[in-house]
């Protein structure tokens, strides 16, 4: 029954744990929050008196700022702990950190950490709700949600679309969350990139793998490029960024294979001239800045929903 649905997650650890109903409900909620950011006074009292701690063990500009703006627009009190200033450098374990934070009675911990599964470890040892803001090469659920929100907004739907994700699939938590999320919502996800950057068993996550990037992009409704990190040359996974750009970079010629109204996405930050050319990144098809805008709305929705969705 439609009316019986209730969002029941205490934590947001990954897209894996969310059903298609959950995802739809989060996106609907986020859409209704989008308007708040367009008001002259961009603040609602919904989370007044709630304490949100941003616990970031990895550098981040965009995601942390987006979470912080989201929390502040909901009137929560926010605090930032960056790895450089935290006890992690003094050898404190994550469980000890969790216990200490619990003693200060926060309501939500937003964590980013280089170890996959660290939000799950934190959630097991803390009373507060935990939001995963990116864990290792595992998941980045809020990014996938804002990507799905952007696609739904631009295309009017997700089911039935062809989504091409190009680049470093192995090391991308964004790709993992998006493959799970878009597949769950009924889209067909194609991935392509150097075979060295396509992880084992990715097909079992629901993705179609193409060796030729042209096959992935052909007739796609959405083309998403992922960031290539320079250190990948050392593993050795890539001969050079130059070769990558030549064979896997998204450019205008390649985009001619996609649907005429295809949109171009990137989770940022972009290596211009590597994953995509300047003209494509800034062109009409690019929705990269819409992704950033929607990020705030999605995070507002997540904070609101895991706090029980009351007092709206």
């Amino acid at each position, binding site marked *: 029954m439609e009316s019986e649905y209730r969002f029941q997650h205490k934590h947001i650890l990954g897209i*894996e744990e969310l059903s298609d109903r959950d995802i739809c409900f989060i996106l609907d909620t986020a859409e209704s929050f989008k308007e708040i950011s367009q008001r002259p006074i961009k603040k609602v009292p919904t989370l007044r008196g709630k304490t949100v701690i941003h616990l970031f063990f990895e550098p981040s500009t965009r995601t942390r700022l987006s979470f912080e703006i989201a929390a502040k627009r909901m009137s929560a009190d926010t605090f930032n702990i960056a790895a450089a200033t935290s006890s992690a450098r003094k050898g404190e*374990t*994550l*469980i000890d950190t969790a216990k200490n934070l619990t003693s200060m009675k926060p309501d939500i911990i937003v964590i980013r*950490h280089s*170890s*996959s*599964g*660290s939000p*799950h*470890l934190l959630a097991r040892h803390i009373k507060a709700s935990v939001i995963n803001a990116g*864990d*290792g*090469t*595992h*998941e980045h659920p809020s990014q996938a949600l804002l990507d799905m929100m952007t696609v739904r907004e631009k295309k009017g739907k997700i089911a039935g679309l062809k989504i091409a994700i190009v680049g470093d699939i192995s090391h991308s*938590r964004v790709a*993992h969350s998006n493959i799970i999320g878009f597949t769950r919502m009924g889209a067909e996800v194609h991935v392509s990139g150097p075979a060295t950057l396509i*992880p*084992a*068993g*990715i*097909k*079992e*996550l629901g993705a179609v793998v193409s060796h030729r990037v042209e096959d992935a992009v052909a007739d796609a409704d959405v083309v998403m490029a992922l960031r290539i990190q320079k250190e990948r040359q050392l593993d050795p996974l890539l001969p050079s960024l130059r070769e990558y750009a030549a064979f896997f970079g998204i450019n205008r010629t390649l985009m001619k294979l996609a649907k005429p109204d295809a949109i171009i996405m990137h989770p940022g930050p972009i290596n211009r001239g590597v994953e995509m050319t300047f003209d494509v990144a800034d062109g009409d098809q690019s929705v990269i800045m819409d992704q950033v805008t929607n990020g705030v709305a999605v995070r507002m929705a997540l904070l609101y929903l895991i706090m029980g969705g009351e007092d709206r």
Partner: protein
Amino acid sequence: MNVTQATLLQNGRIIDPALNIDEPGDLLIVDGIIRQQGKARSIACPPNCESIDLHGKWLVPGLIDMHVHLREPGEEYKETIASGTRAAAAGGFTAVACMPNTSPVNDNQSVTSLILTKAAAEGSARVYPVGAISKNSKGTELAEYGELKKAGAVAVSDDGRPVANSQLMRRALEYSGNHNLLVISHAEEVSLSENGVMNEGALSTRLGLRGIPTVAETIMIYRDLALAEYVGRPIHIAHISTRESVDLIRRAKMRGCRVTAETAPHYFTLTEEAVGIYNTRAKMNPPLRAADDLAAIREGLRDGTIDAIATDHAPHSAMEKDVEFDQAANGIIGLETAVPLSLALVRENVLSPARMIELLSVQPARMLGVAGGSLAAGNPADITVIDPEKSFIYREENVVSKSGNSPFLGWELTGKAVLTIVAGRITFREL
């Protein structure tokens, strides 16, 4: 004046594959030696003799675990020779071979002597030290095998730090021949496994954890088999975990290569699925593999490709285990769960009872060239009594080892060692 000490074990099911016996019988121990073995109720109790009724129990040669980590010297907060051998006794083991990756590394006679002195004074099981293949297990210079052997080492291995240099492995295989030491290979090609934390596959991708491919193990087995055959020396492959490893060793044996191999109970009991939601108690090296590998390991145990079940007992404290999965130490304790987990294979008709005892006693003794593995009269009285029907829940508070890093905590297990005897001395009794 010598006081004779005698114990009569009565009416147990004597399983002694070395003597091809599997029938009810009695066994008389006098002064730490097996004096007599006979049909049930056929041996009379001498004066001052304790008799123990073993109806319904298995009476088998003392179990030998050829692959444990006792952590002493250096990491006594995880385990000591005293606590580790107490865990061994509680699990039914009368002897263990301890790996050299202690601190300092057991690459010389002093460390070997220290281990043996401690074991003699505080141990509840026989301890057979395994020396290092290379000095400090660095993989560059050979350790002093002659001195190690003289001090009491029974084998050499750089367990935990696989020998990357093929020339060094070749020289180790050659030189071990002078001192009759078994070379035990921890087969891992580190350039393929480096930074990996679980089996590579769909699950590692799903969990975002760096994978260790099966070929990291098999490539090194290939190399070590080639070297052993080339120099004409035996080699023992530790803790095999993959189908390809079993296949390789089976084929090598068929063409006459003197290779032996062991696996651990977790590789025939659990798959990678046990990692679940980042359970560090399911993290070990080599990692838990896929269901197909588990099936192949079971077949290898059954058909004789695999020669021994060894636990790779690897105690770690909460400090190493209650952390992020990729930061957690490798390894689980195993001494106290090997018997019930092996018995599960007997119940599933993978192994006969006699085959299980071969894997846990007869063959480890033979491979290491140590006493035990048989209940023949005249042998030291190293004896294990197993109650194959006894069920228990393996709980943290009942763990005898100093560490509790086991994926089997909370499991209901069936079958347990209830009496362990080393040289006539009872080291564990629960009946």
